[in-house]
């Protein structure tokens, strides 16, 4: 119907949109990782109350170290999904996905009190990945977008799990991994082109 109107529809995915969206994504990532920082404090107080072991708390502290990176990668991918699949995702929906990723750490803390850390980790990863995949599927009606997010989330949580168990070598491998991730992200933004004032992912 809109195509019949005398004026072409106002382009949505402009450079200005990208700028605004980047700032929004960064701020929500920042706010949620600050809030998730309290999971650490909570873990300390649970240890003091004798509900949790010291080694388990160390594992949770290690896991929360990677929260900023994990949330930022998913948020930026959602932005690229929006441009590539031309399905708009609004701020609240971004916020909900970011919240579910923060909730991951709280759930992990709660579950790790009752069962071994790795069992808790697998269960919570399954819960978070299933929830977000279904949500993205519902938002975009696209199997491809859903698969992309599922693979990304599983990859992220698997990498975090590996880094947590690697111990002292984790930092070296983690920072080399980050270097690769930034290079890949740069590659994708280079494919972002402006056509008729509108961004397209080529």
């Amino acid at each position, binding site marked *: 119907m809109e195509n019949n109107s005398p004026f072409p529809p106002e382009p949505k995915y*402009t*450079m200005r949109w*990208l*700028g605004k969206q*980047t*700032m929004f994504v*960064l*701020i929500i*990532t*920042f706010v949620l*990782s*600050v809030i998730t920082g309290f999971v650490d404090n909570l873990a300390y107080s649970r240890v003091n109350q004798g509900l949790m072991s010291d080694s388990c708390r160390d594992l949770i502290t290690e896991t929360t*170290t990677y929260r*900023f990176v994990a949330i930022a990668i998913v948020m*930026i991918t959602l*932005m690229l999904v929006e441009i590539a699949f031309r399905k708009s995702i609004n701020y609240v929906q971004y916020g909900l996905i970011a919240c579910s990723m923060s909730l991951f750490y709280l759930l992990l803390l709660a579950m790790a009190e009752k069962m071994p850390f790795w069992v808790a980790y697998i269960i919570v990863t399954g819960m978070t990945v299933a929830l977000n995949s279904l949500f993205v599927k519902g938002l975009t009606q696209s199997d491809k977008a859903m698969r992309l997010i599922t693979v990304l989330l599983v990859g992220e949580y698997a990498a975090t799990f590996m880094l947590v168990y690697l*111990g*002292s*070598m984790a*930092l*070296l491998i*983690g*920072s*080399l991994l*980050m*270097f690769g991730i*930034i*290079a890949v*992200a*740069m590659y994708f*933004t*280079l494919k*972002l082109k*402006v056509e008729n*004032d509108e961004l397209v992912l080529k």
Partner: protein
Amino acid sequence: MKNISYGKKVVYLGLQCFVLMFSAFIVWGMAYSREETNRSTSRSITSEWGGPVTMTTPTLGCSTDSVAGITPLQYRCEAAVEAQSLHRGIYEAEVYNASVTISGTFSKAELPVCADSLATLKLTLPAAQLVRTGELRIAGHSLKWKKEAEGLSATLPCDSLPEIIDFATVLEIRGSGALRIGSEAASAEITIAGTAHAPSFHGTTPPAQRSVEGSRFSATWVEEDSTNSYASTSFLTGVDRYQKVCRSIKYAFMLILLTFICVMFTEIVLGQVIPMLNYFLIGAALVLFYCLLLSFAEHMTFGYAYLAASAMIIPLITAYMWLMLRSRKAALTMAGLLTALYVICYIMLCLSDYALLMGSLLLFVALAALMYGSVNRRI
């Protein structure tokens, strides 16, 4: 499209800087916690081996008297140190074995008259860290050292002592961190020599002679008529690298800010819009530099780690600018700027006394460049 408001963009970039500094702060936290882990690991390695050793000057006194005995007239002490590194994972600690040769003389005239005519030679040092004690030769006698809680002692009869009592012995000790030898005598000469990774020399006076060649070192202290004096050599472990990483993160804000300003000027000069997302990725690469620096510094010396990390980040950002703007000039300018900034930051790290001066001069130059760039342009 063409009339982008740069005022708004500057505000957004400022916000981005703030968020990026938050992630730099996370890297700082990681450096801090790893320093703690390194300290506690090396503490647990060295606690099995033994901590710093403090050995006092031997004193001669009455066995029944609790008053401190007399100090030697002449005192020579030569410590031959063999240091070795113990590893646990990536953490290391330096420990040493030392063979200490002591010789000197006491004057009998200074010695008080003892009730049971028995004199005792006492030497205070951590007895648990003694590997072997050689026999003590004193005034023609050959005695065995007796181990006590706070050191060694040997008892000998007073009557047969000559006017000048000479003594000599060899002790083998082990320890870590530092070796400290007392030099309270009318005339003392202390030599600490051997092999160690990074020795540093302290003492109540600086050493009269010192030399460090490769891993071999030697230092000699000469003291006259001194009380409470000592000569000491300490052996560092690799904790200072974490402090260097933490200090380098202090310059992160300046680095990000100057890079952003340069990218924005490139954008204005070329008239090509660079999205905020690309700015963020450049900033993230700059923060990642510190992460790489921290992880490399644990496996090599700090200088090489700095070189390796900057050799990864500078080409990444340069290639990105090149492919994004299709301008060789812009890419080379960026490469030049980043290289200069990293070199200046490294110099500031090494010359910490001049860091403030260099930092403020750098900001002045940046401001001047900014004014020069914007004087003929309407932004």
